């Protein structure tokens, strides 16, 4: 039972973590990405179709990442070059892409909302000898797919790139001090575009993880708002990769718990609200702390 929950929690964390890391980099560079959910949906659909057509999960992942990246680029260009409000454009993308996906499913496959293809190349799972038989540790480390490993390896990598490299400094400058960045000869808008493309790429992978990693079919509700949970994770994690990952893990655990608790008297709907409630609470606490330090200073 506990092993099951731990394993499911790790599985449910991966898509949120992937999208949250993308959104985090995006926000550091100055763009709050509300459209992550739409890029996830596009990645999930493209990933499944390519996994069935090409019969290779790695090709499917590349295609899903590309699909997410294309939508990320379109969204970014609308925001940075047409001076559009990022929130509205993000919401607009979520509505338009969801419509586009269903339109495509009906037109090409004649199905409404669900796509079940034969011979889908699923993500492989790695069992680690010895560890897989240990309690807790086995569920935590063994039996996971390459995307889960990649997601967790990307946490220290993202932290390092943002903190220690020239690229990271430039991304942070594009977000925190775009005028200073421009004065130094950088192009904050281009950096912002690059970060949105990265966010789209990560969200596309997160979507493919859901379709070819977890369920094996595509459904129009497959993301179940995980793009917004990812948003909650990097808001809650205050743009710090490790803290964001911890939040993603917490939300993944809620997700796994809620699936377990269904039909056991604990209302799953109320558990689902927890990530969102936590974001409001943390924003309030942070604002209170800021005010307290300000009043102390004067």
């Amino acid at each position, binding site marked *: 039972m506990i092993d099951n929950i731990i394993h499911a929690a790790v599985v449910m964390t991966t898509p949120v973590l992937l999208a949250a890391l993308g959104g985090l980099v995006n926000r550091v560079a100055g763009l*709050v990405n*509300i459209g992550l959910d739409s890029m996830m949906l596009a990645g999930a659909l493209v990933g499944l179709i390519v996994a069935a057509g090409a019969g290779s999960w790695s090709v499917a992942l590349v295609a899903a990442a590309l699909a997410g990246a294309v939508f990320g680029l379109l969204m970014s260009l*609308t925001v940075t070059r*047409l*001076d*559009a*409000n990022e*929130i*509205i*454009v993000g*919401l*607009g*993308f*979520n*509505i*338009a*892409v*969801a*419509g*586009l996906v*269903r*339109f495509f499913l*009906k*037109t090409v496959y004649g199905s409404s909302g669900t796509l079940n293809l034969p011979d889908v190349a699923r993500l492989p799972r790695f069992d680690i000898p010895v560890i897989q038989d240990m309690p807790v540790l086995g569920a935590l480390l063994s039996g996971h797919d390459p995307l889960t490993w990649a997601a967790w390896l990307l946490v220290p990598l993202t932290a390092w790139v943002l903190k220690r490299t020239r690229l990271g400094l430039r991304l942070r400058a594009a977000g925190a001090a775009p005028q200073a960045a421009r004065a130094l000869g950088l192009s904050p808008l281009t950096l912002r575009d690059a970060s949105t493309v990265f966010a789209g790429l990560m969200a596309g992978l997160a979507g493919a993880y859901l379709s070819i990693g977890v369920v094996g079919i595509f459904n129009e509700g497959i993301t179940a*708002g995980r793009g*917004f949970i990812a*948003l*909650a994770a990097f*808001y809650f994690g205050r743009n710090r990769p490790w803290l964001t990952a911890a939040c993603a893990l917490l939300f993944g655990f809620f997700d796994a718990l809620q699936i377990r608790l269904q039909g056991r008297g604990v*209302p799953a*709907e*109320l558990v*689902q*609200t927890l990530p*969102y*409630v936590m*974001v*409001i609470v943390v*924003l*309030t606490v942070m*604002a*209170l702390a800021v*005010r307290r330090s300000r009043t102390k200073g004067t």
Partner: protein
Amino acid sequence: MSDHAASAAPPTRFPWANLAEILTPLLLALAAAGVVLAVAGHNPFEVYWLLAVESFGGTRRIAATLAASTPLILTGLATAVAFRAGAFNVGVEGCVFVGGLAAAWVGFSFTGLPAVALVPLALAAAVVVGAFWMLVPGLLKARLDVDEVVTTLMLNFIAISLTAYLVNGPLLAPGSANSATPMVAEAARLPKLMPPSTLNAGFLIAIALLVLYWWWSNRTALGFETRIAGTNPRFATASGIDVPSLIIRMMLLSGAIGGVAGGIHALGTVGRFVSGFSPGYGFTGIAVALLGRGSAIGILLAALLFGALTTSGATIQLFSDVPIEIVNILQGMVMIFAVARFGWIFARRRRA
């Protein structure tokens, strides 16, 4: 954030003056969706003509369009009120959910009351609950400067899950398997204006509120102060306007109108509260407020447009093989293009 919100609500001039400004995003969205249609093997012009005929060709079709526009007028209005004060409220969807449930609850609980008491009571419940739903983000924005976009967005998901919990448990209709409350009393139903169409008295309420909004924003001191607070909060503060309190009041008003939208949808159209109550009325309301540029007549026209798309989209799916989702694609594109600025393209061309 607030300067964008303000730009979405410029002072209401004579509507034709910024007609081009309103038509540009619409035409671009039609063009982009037209490409999608053409790729899928449909003739976009035929589809659009069919959509127009299906939404305005005949009394019955017009009644259906007006009925579909009713919630959108209200959610557009709710969004515009907050935008005008410089608060970027994207949480009207949540207010529709909690307001709808509150009105439905009154409607099926106090069945002994006559219609003259029950309908106002149910709508009042929707107003109070809707306003209450925006209290926390309003206070946080005004007093602690917490980003209202994030809090209101999160509250949408909380509202949807919370109401789903209530209609699956405590408020589930006895003997019902699907997540829905009992039907409201006959006395709580809003009278139908043109049976058999679902067009009901809620449409008249929406129009009345729209007229009030016009009067408020153009003819009252509070409307003027709100506009100043939205466009230039520092100037407003310097002129002695209490901007934080104004923001709280406008957020409450926005939530109240959003609650009314839900209440009218519950009492007028659905007759109860079901899970998945709103197909995104609150989000479409953002598109309506933006496309209408915050003016009363603009909101009406934009709501009619989206209402027409919804009702005709459902029928053309029956007559042709064009999926109804073309409506969602159009709606999303309008949102995207409504906030995009194309001025620089022309500016650059002029320079060259």
